[in-house]
């Protein structure tokens, strides 16, 4: 038997992602099965079932996926989900045994047959629910058959005669195995008992209600006793001894079938069934409050769904990983006023112009795109504004001629490292200040203005690693969601919790398709957080419900290559002919420099110009073909802005545009000069 699923496909987020693809159909099937058109099927940490909703525990899907069976991932996702849905819909053992008594089915069973009868009942009831609930879904039944059959050999060899007998009852009732073939595998005692039990199992499959199944389970118990499968207790034995012996028998009986059946808490045991009932009661009313939400309402499941729905980014090296792509928290706009003031001060201090950043590029981009005219000293007609131009000394614009509208298009994407290390103090002359991220964000702001003036499509993104913030998060909601998700996932998924909560995140501050005006306040607020981290942290402590999630920058690690590939893919979708990607980072990637280098090469091969700017770290020299290392804030912002300007100029030159009038720039960077001349 070959295992079709790789370890990556068995990870919980991959299992949940596959479930999400079949979820609409599964919900529709569940509604048909229950006869309730409003039933919702959602994921949650504890299985529960009520009239309005069914909560499936994704760990059960993962447990099914870990089986080695000849089924595909899609089949497994469907079968495990339907299996859980059918059992949660069908299991109701709380009805009184008879109208005259208050004893319910499980109590009756315990009283009349003890724990072994209970095991036999759940084996039969599990199979009966599948036979009847999946009557219209033979495909699902066939997947379950394959899953069960793949586990039979190991189960038979491990189980004793009683376990083999109980397993046989389950398989016969569900019609999952050929009788003769199965009986050849088991011990002679189990074989004899099973041949006697077979008609009862088939009867159980057609039973109308669980009570009838319980009566058949008691009959099967008698058969097991008759054939000596149960441990005989001496008459003189104490009650405690008898109970111990029954418990041991029950464990022996459960041994075989538990290796074959898929775990479903509602038909696993009386204890797990009651857990489901308790979880259902605990959720009572919650579904009404949640409205149409598809989430189960707890932070850990929300996070699990978020990771599973995140795009998978593939690197040229063959590596792949999930990347949480989300709008940046809009609550940073609350710091916008402080941010704008701080920006003005920083721009003055570091000598970064904030108006008409586009300089000599402007006439060639925006002005002429609007008017369809090209200016010059000696060609075309005299401009109607010639007098004004002469007065202003702009002789080169005296004449203008109509040029065909440019079909070239440009796109600029700026990726800024937003890990905690960018907020650490750095040398600035004699002092040490935290200028890494603030200088980067000033550069981003300036670059955004440059692109805005030139009417060039642009995007500003931040990337980091940690618990991903949501667009509406405040410090309060962010920190609580982070701690609750971590705690919940540690409880349900153990060591996988770290992977699921510390994700690689890509925050879109200003996506290509949004207006700069909408994003400016958020970026300004982020600038203040970066420029004054202590004050921002203080504000967050004082009023966490109103302040943006400043804690999202607390982790130092980062994985540059996934973000780079994703940003390049987003930009490529625009179809722009000149594409510039500026990556600003302050150190080593948490991934590998080799992967980063191959990612940069792949992006460059696709025609995108990638500029790597390293802050006080020379990782960029090894990974990027075009790089700059800066050690001072003024160098950083100029490197970003001038790098982009030069790349745009290069784009113009490559397209054969006259650039004789372009003035040499004071901050021309040597390697970019080469690029322009290339």
């Amino acid at each position, binding site marked *: 038997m070959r295992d079709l699923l790789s370890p990556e496909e068995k990870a919980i987020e991959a299992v949940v992602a596959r479930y999400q693809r079949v979820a*609409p159909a599964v919900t529709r099937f569940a509604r*048909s099965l229950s006869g309730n*058109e409003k039933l919702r099927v959602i994921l949650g940490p504890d299985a529960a079932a009520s009239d309005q909703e069914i909560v499936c525990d994704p760990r059960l899907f993962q447990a099914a996926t870990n089986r080695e069976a000849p089924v595909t991932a899609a*089949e497994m996702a469907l079968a495990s989900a339907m299996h859980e849905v059918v059992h949660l819909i069908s299991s109701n053992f709380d009805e009184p045994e008879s109208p005259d008594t208050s004893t319910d089915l499980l109590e009756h069973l315990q009283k009349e047959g003890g724990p072994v009868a209970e095991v036999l009942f759940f084996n039969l009831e599990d199979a009966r629910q599948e036979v009847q609930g999946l009557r*219209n*879904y033979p*495909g699902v039944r066939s*997947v379950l058959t394959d899953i069960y059959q793949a586990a039979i050999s190991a189960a038979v060899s491990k189980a004793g005669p009683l376990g083999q007998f109980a397993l046989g009852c389950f398989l016969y009732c569900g019609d999952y195995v050929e009788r003769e073939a199965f009986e050849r595998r088991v011990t002679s005692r189990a074989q004899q008992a099973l041949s006697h039990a077979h008609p009862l199992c088939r009867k159980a499959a057609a039973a109308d209600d669980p009570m009838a199944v319980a009566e058949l389970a008691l009959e099967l118990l008698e058969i097991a006793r008759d054939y000596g499968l149960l441990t005989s207790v001496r008459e003189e034995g104490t009650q405690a001894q008898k109970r111990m012996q029954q418990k041991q028998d029950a464990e022996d009986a459960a041994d075989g079938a538990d290796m074959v059946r898929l775990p479903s808490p509602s038909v696993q045991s009386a204890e797990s069934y009651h857990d489901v009932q308790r979880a259902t009661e605990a959720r009572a009313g919650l579904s009404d409050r949640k409205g149409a939400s598809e989430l189960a309402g707890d932070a850990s499941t929300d996070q699990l769904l978020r990771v599973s729905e995140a795009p998978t980014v593939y690197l040229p090296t063959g590596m792949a990983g999930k990347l949480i792509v989300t709008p940046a928290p809009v609550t940073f706009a609350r710091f916008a006023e402080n941010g704008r003031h701080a920006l003005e001060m920083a721009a003055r201090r570091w000598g970064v112009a904030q108006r008409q950043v586009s300089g000599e590029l402007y006439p060639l981009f925006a002005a002429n795109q609007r008017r369809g005219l090209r200016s010059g000293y000696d060609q075309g007609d005299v401009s109607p504004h010639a007098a004004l131009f002469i007065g202003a000394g702009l002789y080169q614009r005296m004449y203008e001629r109509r040029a065909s509208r440019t079909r070239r298009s440009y796109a600029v994407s700026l990726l800024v490292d937003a890990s905690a290390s960018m907020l650490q103090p750095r040398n600035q002359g004699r002092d040490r200040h935290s200028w890494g991220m603030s200088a980067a964000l000033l550069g981003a702001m300036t670059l955004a203005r440059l692109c805005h003036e030139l009417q060039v499509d642009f995007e500003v993104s931040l990337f980091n690693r940690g618990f991903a913030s949501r667009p509406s998060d405040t410090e309060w909601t962010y920190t609580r969601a982070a701690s609750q998700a971590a705690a919940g996932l540690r409880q349900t998924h153990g060591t996988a919790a770290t992977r699921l909560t510390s994700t690689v995140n890509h925050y879109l501050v200003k996506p290509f398709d949004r207006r700069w005006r909408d994003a400016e306040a958020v970026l300004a607020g982020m600038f203040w957080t970066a420029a004054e981290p202590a004050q921002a942290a203080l504000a967050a402590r004082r009023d966490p419900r109103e302040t943006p999630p400043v804690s999202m920058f607390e982790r130092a690690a980062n994985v540059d290559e996934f973000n780079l590939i994703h940003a390049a893919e987003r930009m490529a979708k625009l179809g722009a002919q000149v594409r510039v990607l500026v990556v600003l980072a302050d150190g080593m990637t948490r991934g590998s420099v080799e992967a980063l280098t191959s990612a940069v090469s792949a992006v460059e091969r696709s025609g995108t110009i990638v500029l790597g700017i390293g802050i006080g770290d020379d990782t960029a020299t090894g990974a990027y073909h075009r790089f700059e290392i800066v050690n001072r804030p003024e160098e950083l912002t100029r490197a970003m802005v001038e790098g982009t300007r030069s790349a745009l100029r290069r784009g113009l030159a490559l397209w054969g545009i006259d650039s004789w009038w372009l003035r040499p720039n004071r901050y021309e960077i040597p390697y970019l000069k080469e690029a322009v001349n290339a």
Partner: protein
Amino acid sequence: MPDQVSISDPTGVGPPITLDRFEVPRNLEDHHQRVGKIPEPDPHYVDLGMLYRFAQIEAVRRSEPEGFAALHLAVRGHMGTGKDHDIEQFAAHMGLPYYRIPLTGEVRDVTLIGSTRLHGDGKGGTESRWEDGDITRALRGPALLNLSELNAAGAETLFALHGLLDRYGALDLPNGETVRLRPDVRVFGTMNPTDIRDYAGTQTLNKAFADRWVIWEKDFPAADQLQAMLRRRYPSMRDDYVEAIARLAIEVNASFVVPDASTRVESPLSLRSVLDRIPTGLRVYHSDTDPLRRSWEEFVLPHVDSFDRDHYETVWNAVVRKGPAVTPFAA
């Protein structure tokens, strides 16, 4: 053809209805053409109840009860439910020439009713002549008029038909002529449901126009009905295939009709897919390892919107997963 036809109730509840077939008078100018428009009874047609209901109305009409007014029947249903087929087969049973006139948004009243046109006399002169439109032409003799896609037509087109469909029972032509609804003319219509589904060009039917029709809903066939259709049309198709195809159609169409947009598909598995495409695929790929799967991939999935693919494939896995291991048709 016999002069009478008997139509049975498929549910077995009602008695068979025997009706006289119509005759096309020989003195009609277009007698030959009209006779040629009488459809042949489809030997594979399975009445799911609609034909019998048509016959019930016809029987009442023939009995000329007191106060009776001619009713016009419209069938509303999703694509591929067999609405037009029912009406066409009623025409075939009744021996009526069948005129199917699609009322697309582009059809104008002059196309349906007619207009005066200039004709050259060959000597340089011209004369104005009236030319019947599609409906007027049909009304000049015995006919079953099927106005398909009623709710795709523009309002001005529909208003032109008001007089024909109400008690007045006649069309007043712009040339002054009045064309009366003959006793051997029956008017039917079909339409798709108007909801958020992608029936391009359809709209909610004008209330005044809708009031002139009896509108009956036609649902997707049930599993046993689908199986009966497949068995009648393909007697040699093996049961495993018949049952699997019916199951697929039932589940896909159940997903199509649910109101919740998050759990439904936008493309149903139409009768054309069930009765035409998949069986053709089974013949094409009869020697394949899994002919049903191959037919599904080649003849069904290409019709499905990309965002419905997962749902279709989930339905496949849920109700079939692996096609029958035998050849589709008995030798």
